């Protein structure tokens, strides 16, 4: 089974950020740039590797990004991917998801894949558009927000569990080949050792393309989106209930520090004989959808 995984190199968002005055972009504080693979993409890679190990076949890792982005391909190869494809882009710097998807589709169309996995969205630009536009340009079915995947290679179908809101789930089925956008929760990513990444970089199994030349092949597209500015979250003040003035100073302090004890809505104290309260209890449980 030939599986293609689209991965993206992003700035690691787990550390403090600040806005760069010149470019208006959000960058990590400090001079060192720390990059990592987008978390949902890591899960997608994990799904692909495990699928390949079970069914057999090949895993292709594709990325679009500047020259440093080959680091994520080394990580993919170190994890067990068979081949890496790097679309080197210094032109639109991956700010336009439409162009990203077009370039990816141009390359993926020649791979002959049965399954294309992408992370549902990236943690830096958070557009979540690439899987959809990719599917459209490849004329393939797409399933988004997938948290569980089952491939039936013999019947060439895929059954996916999708995340709806509030814990609700939906199970859909689609024929392969298809584009699947997976969420981070679909798999626990495994750590790729430095030795494997170094060995991968020495094995030289990465094909490169240029985003500019790919776009020219398609008739020369230019970005339709221009990022103007990013901003960081402003501090949110938290409302503090004023404590009862009749209580002592120490009690008031205690109240403020523990956030007080708020009365719960819908709380009912049932009193009376067990027969009557039993019916009430069952009613409450049914209302809360426990039974």
């Amino acid at each position, binding site marked *: 089974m030939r599986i293609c995984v689209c991965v993206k190199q992003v700035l690691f968002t787990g550390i*403090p950020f600040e806005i760069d005055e010149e470019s208006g972009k959000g960058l990590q504080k*400090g001079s060192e740039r720390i990059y990592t693979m987008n978390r949902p993409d890591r899960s997608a890679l994990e799904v692909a590797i495990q699928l390949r190990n079970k069914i057999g076949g090949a895993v292709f890792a594709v990325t679009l990004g500047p020259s440093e982005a080959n680091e994520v391909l080394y990580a993919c190869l170190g994890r067990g991917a068979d081949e890496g494809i790097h679309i080197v882009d210094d032109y639109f710097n991956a700010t336009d998801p439409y162009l990203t998807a077009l370039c990816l589709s141009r390359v993926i169309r020649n791979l002959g894949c049965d399954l294309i996995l992408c992370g549902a969205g990236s943690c830096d630009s958070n557009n979540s558009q690439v899987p959809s536009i990719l599917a459209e340009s490849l004329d393939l079915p797409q399933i988004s927000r997938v948290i569980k995947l089952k491939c039936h290679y013999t019947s060439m179908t895929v059954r996916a569990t999708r995340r709806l809101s509030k814990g609700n789930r939906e199970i859909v089925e689609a024929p392969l080949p298809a584009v699947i956008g997976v969420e981070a929760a679909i798999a626990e990513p495994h750590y790729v*050792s430095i*030795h494997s*990444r170094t060995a991968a970089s020495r*094995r030289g199994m990465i094909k490169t393309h240029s985003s500019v030349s790919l776009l020219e092949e398609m008739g020369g597209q230019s970005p339709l989106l221009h990022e103007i500015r990013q901003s960081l979250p402003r501090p949110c003040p938290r409302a503090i209930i004023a404590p009862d003035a009749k209580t002592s100073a120490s009690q008031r302090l205690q109240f403020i520090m523990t956030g007080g004890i708020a009365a719960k809505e819908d709380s009912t104290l049932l009193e009376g004989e067990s027969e009557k309260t039993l019916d009430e209890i069952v009613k409450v449980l049914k209302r809360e959808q426990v039974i």
Partner: protein
Amino acid sequence: MIPTRDYFGPIPGFVIFWAIFILALALFLLRAIKLTRYLDLGRNIDRTDRLFSRILAAINQTILQRCTLRSCSKRDLSGIGHAVVFWGFGVFLLNYVLFIFIGGGLGLVDLVDDLIITPWLRLITDWAGILIMAMLVWGAFRRYVTKPERLADGKEAGIILLWIFLLMVFHFMPEELQSSCQALWWIHYCLIMGFFVYLPYSKHLHILTAPLNLFFAPARRVGSFTADNIASDLPGQDIGFLHWKHIFDLYCCTECGRCQASCPATKAGTPLKPKDMVLKLKKYVIRNGGELLLTLKSPQAKNFRSSLHAKLAGTSIEEEELWACTTCGRCQEECPVLIEHGDRIVNLRRCLIENGQASGSLGNCLESLSLLGNPWKRSPGERINWVLDRNMNYAQENKRMDILYWVGCTGAYDPKGQEIAKAMVEVLKTAGINFAILGVGEKCCGEPARRLGEEGLFQKLARDNITALGKYKFDRIMTHCPHCYNIIKHEYGELGGKFEVIHHTEFLAEHSSKGNFIFKEPGKRVTYHDPCYLGRYNGLYHDARSLIQAIPGVELVEMTDNKKSAVCCGGGGGLFWLEWLAGERINYQRFAQVQEVSPQTLITACPFCKILLDDACRFRKVENQIKVEDIVEFIRSCSLKQR
């Protein structure tokens, strides 16, 4: 009486004698050669340097029986029994060679009888025989009646005890009985040769392999870890992880159980049991060795050793066993034949890591280390957040310092660790020492990476640190963390970083001995917990104690298990960063020993020990009775303004 001169039918006794000998030798060699070939399953490693000290060590440990005598204690005197049997057996060996082989086999009875030493030898042998029998009876009594914890039921032990006892019985058989029944002499001879054949099929092989193991032992009893050689990257070269010495270790295990009895992970109920791990691996290697060797030699053997070792890691033993080891070193401290448990476990961990089997808390720790240069998932820029002082000395390229204070990750990022760093800086500043810290240029020393099996990450971090340190001029590196101390001192050298490193207890003891502290009398009862990486790994027990005892009015009490047998806090081997999945936590077990001596303050010298034992203190709800402090914090709280 020369039984070999008789004829058995047409065959002279000599022929039968030497035929039995050759048969026994053949059977022995058959097995011994097979076992030697299996060593090829491990990669190559050089253990022939320092030849003189190796020979000396082997002789010292074997002939002088330091191997077992060193572990004699009031609770366990079995080392004496072993030493007596060993020396006695040495005498018997001489006896056998002289009387049975030269006298009997070669027929030179008259020559042997006329030797000056013969009557003395006979006398000594008789006494040796009596002593051996007494020791065997004592041994059997221990094993089958009193049943100490560390001795598991083993039928091999019973067979060996019985066999040697029989040999003694045969030795004491009177001449008349032997003359009247020639068969007895032959039975005695067969018992001796049979024992020789039984050696490579039993744990008694240790009498041949243990002295060799002592010869091939690493430089330090506890704390020697081997680098892998994957970085010497010829593409497609099959390197593997375990080296031949690890396979040889398996042949040396005497099943004494000392490792298992002292292992904190075993006591805590984890799947890790050091002796069982050795025996399981031994069984796997001996059972499958032949088949594995064939695959190794075949042309499809690309990356075979790596996958073999991964198989060893996942099949013959459970993965959980490997992840439960804190590398505290007690097993190696106790092992009479110097089996390298720690190095083997780390090498097997490497298999799992390289195979991509690290996820969960382990994956998170390594991910944080490789991405951010520290295991705390904090940014490198925040490494100096703990520094309150605007006038902190940061290392400058042209300024020479006496001491480079290596703060370490825990000292920089964790609040309890930061308390240690702040106290240390206060002491250094008040003492007017010319010191500096690296600041944001410092990365994790790499120790958790190495112990967890991520060798590539360790080497990357170490090289970065060596480059960063190379920019500055300083006399010594001082650190408060024994893990940083140990790895920079002993394991940075082979990567090109040769530095003089001291631990802060050494520095403080040095400083105090010059009379630089003025102490008040705090009137406290304290106890000191020996960190594994300071004590067993580096032999530093004295400095902290002398420091504490220099403070007037402080009563220092010792816990049950201290110094060489101190119990681990559970934080080593990278376990500080892993989720605990088994029974009672190791730190809670150690804390129970702390509570036994009821101190007011528990003094530690390692940030992991401090954090874990403080956690145990809070868990037991005695944080108002026992304060857990690092030694520098204690010193600072007990001293008035310094000179």
